[in-house]
């Protein structure tokens, strides 16, 4: 056999199903590097225009041009799913990538944290992009850009709907946006606003602003709602990065093994696999870690268990439950961090590594910010609190972010946090910053 018989898109999909995966139908498209990197920068094709995506695109593309990094694929959580491959890849590479994509799409379809994502998001973001263009036309490009800067600065601070399995009682609020247009045409609430200005632990800062900012014009409210919709779509991916890559890596191995490959291709494939799972300095490689954990579950508890984990866990519970001492040793994980003015290696003890890693992936590695009061001082000021869990905020960054929040809220804004063991409140009133120790 001088040449492997590479399976077609459909054959790989059928193969995946025979092996137990259940992906959405997938449409593959081979695209040039510029396009693949563009999609990766925007995270989804057709998304609204903003300079920050251009900045990301430039940075990623430059790294690619210098040979510092190579994206193999970009897969969209949608039904049918879309997967973009690099047109310059070899057939073997793209076969490997197709196999990998089967794992991702199965994960999108079955992991419970994705159960409420909008599977028609490609259409949704195109409509968003169209509306933003319209607003740029009506309001001016710079006005819209300035406003988007603000909305994007706090885009992560939304409440992602809980998956049905883990359903808990939520404070009464508007339902998770059902498709972007719906918020627009239906008045959100008939209750008097002032009654709503204090909500218990409101973690959906964007929704709070959409509902209760007295200053926003309709187009601005719509922009915030669009940013929020898109972030809610992306949150499940942020909280399952290790699992998702691990599952896909597990399955590219399983599916490639089930194909008839030449000896040369087997070796080349092994090389590909080890390049994606190679250690990255000062970080963890989610492919390697996710793969090893899933493989371990499969071997010690059986294939069924691996499928169950893929369905119910997210990265936090995945690491908490399945990152064992032998795996920490085998993956050569270690904790490092600041000590006086140096960054030093602190420990290789497995519980420390595990707990530190859980902290790192918890809430996407972002601080938790909640609204305490939308009528602070009885003057309609916004009071936010940072739920401090051991690490301080970057205060200069927080101050600049408050300027953005002020633009969204239109009245003075405050943020309570802890810095160097002291409770402090940062404030911005549109002109000056304040910093008070409480």
């Amino acid at each position, binding site marked *: 056999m001088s040449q492997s018989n590479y399976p077609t898109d459909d054959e790989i999909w059928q193969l995946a199903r025979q092996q137990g995966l259940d992906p959405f139908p997938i449409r593959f498209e081979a695209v040039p590097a510029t396009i693949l990197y563009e999609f990766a920068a925007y995270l989804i094709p057709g998304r609204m225009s903003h300079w*920050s995506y*251009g900045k990301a695109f430039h940075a990623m593309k430059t790294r690619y041009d210098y040979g510092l990094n190579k994206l193999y694929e970009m897969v969209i959580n949608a039904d049918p799913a879309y997967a973009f491959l690099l047109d310059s890849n070899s057939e073997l590479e793209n076969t490997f990538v197709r196999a990998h994509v089967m794992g991702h799409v199965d994960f999108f379809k079955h992991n419970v944290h994705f159960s409420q994502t909008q599977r028609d998001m490609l259409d949704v973001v195109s409509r968003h992009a169209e509306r933003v263009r319209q607003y740029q036309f009506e309001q001016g490009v710079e006005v819209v850009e300035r406003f988007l800067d603000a909305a994007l*600065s706090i885009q992560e601070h939304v409440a992602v709907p809980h998956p049905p399995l883990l359903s808990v009682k939520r404070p009464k609020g508007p339902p998770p946006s059902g498709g972007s247009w719906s918020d627009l045409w239906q008045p959100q609430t008939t209750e008097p606003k002032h009654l709503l200005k204090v909500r218990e632990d409101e973690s959906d800062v964007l929704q709070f602003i959409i509902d209760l900012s007295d200053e926003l014009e309709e187009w601005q409210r719509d922009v915030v709602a669009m940013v929020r919709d898109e972030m809610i779509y992306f949150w499940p991916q942020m909280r399952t990065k290790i699992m998702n890559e691990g599952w896909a890596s597990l399955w590219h191995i399983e599916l490639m093994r089930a194909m008839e490959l030449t000896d040369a291709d087997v070796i080349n494939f092994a090389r590909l696999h080890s390049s994606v799972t190679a*250690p990255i300095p000062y970080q963890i490689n989610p492919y390697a870690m996710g793969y090893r954990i899933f493989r371990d579950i499969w071997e010690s508890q059986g294939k069924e268990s691996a499928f169950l984990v893929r369905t119910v866990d997210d990265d936090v519970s995945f690491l908490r439950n399945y990152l064992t001492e032998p795996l920490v040793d085998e993956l*050569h994980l270690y904790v490092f*961090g600041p000590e006086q003015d*140096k*960054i030093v290696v602190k420990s290789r003890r497995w519980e420390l590594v595990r707990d530190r890693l859980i902290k790192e992936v918890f809430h996407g590695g*972002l601080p938790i910010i909640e609204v305490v009061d939308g009528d602070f001082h009885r003057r309609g000021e916004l009071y936010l609190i940072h739920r401090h869990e051991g690490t301080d905020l970057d205060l200069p960054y927080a101050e600049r972010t408050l*300027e953005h929040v002020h633009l969204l809220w239109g009245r003075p804004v405050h943020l309570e946090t802890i810095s160097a063991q002291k409770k402090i409140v940062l404030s911005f009133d549109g002109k000056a910053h304040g910093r008070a120790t409480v």
Partner: protein
Amino acid sequence: MAGFVPDWTLQRKGATDQARHQQKIRDALKQRLPDLITEDSILTADGGRVIRVPIRNLEEYKFRFDPWQGDRVGQDQGELTQGDILGQIPAPASGDKAGRGAGAPGEIPGIDYLEAEISIDDLAGMLFEDLGLPYLKPKMLSNIPRPTFQFKDISKRGLMGNLDKRRSLRENLLRHARQGKTGLGPWQPDDLRFKTWVNVPQEDNNAVVIAMRDISGSMGDFKKLMARTFAFWMLRFLRTKYESVEVVFIVHHTQAREVTEEEFFQLGESGGTKVSSAYELCWEVLQNRYPASQWNIYPVHFSDGDNWSDADNRRTVEFLEAMLPLVNVFGYAEIREGGYTSTLMTAFGTIRHPRFQVVTIGNKRDVYTALKKFFPRSPGDERA
């Protein structure tokens, strides 16, 4: 599936947003020009050198953790052991507001801040976009003969209009003579000779800068640096606008004399100040060497304005008023540390002449303002 464009060449969003980002970097750099042009390192560097400028306005601010606080997890091949040092935490930059990003981020990931790279030539280009050459005198240009090419050579090809008839006839005669015939014969293309020309660069666009500096005892290091910085950019600017720029350096305390460029910036002497001595010398230099009919003239004077006497101030003003009709711009830059009004400034306060520009330089950023004031960009005056 709606919203899809299979023709990838139509996909331009990434490029468009990237261009917008680059534009924002440029705008941010432009806002920082007053600081950038006074960077000490620039004055000694060659134009191709690239400087790195942190741009805080273009960071994507968000609520995030202190990047230098808290532990993280890494992965290696097993070679690191407890206590190994991976890097150094940069000291906080001056002022909390600047954050710690100003230090070198090193190899530890997670710290990213935006730095724009710009060459000094590009920086100069950006600065010069805002500057112009006021009061250019068209008559000066027409007075200068402008033969920019000369017929100097002969070639076998050329335009018929430039046919050298005499040489062509000669070639025709010679060719036939070689074949043993006399007189003109049938013409061949090979017989023809053409006059060709060479371009002769003609310096038709001359400017002279008379740089005058007070070197009396009161002019300290800061004042020297400001004069130097200003002169650096002024000369660079004029050299991009004119094909040749001559500079006359004059220093003065109670007496004035012409010096070399090096001396101009380095000399420091004690003693009193008579500004009129410099203006008188400037006047003489203009009369003897740089007739206003042929030169664009830019005298500029740096002083702290601490002049000897009112009588000398009056004498200074007289010379100044005599020179103003001759010059393009006469700039007086008063470099001060602290707020006071000098006697010279008071004396100059009575002069209202569009070509006389006065600026006060109290800190580095004023250099930019001064440049813009001396060389305002007024489209009516600027040469295309």
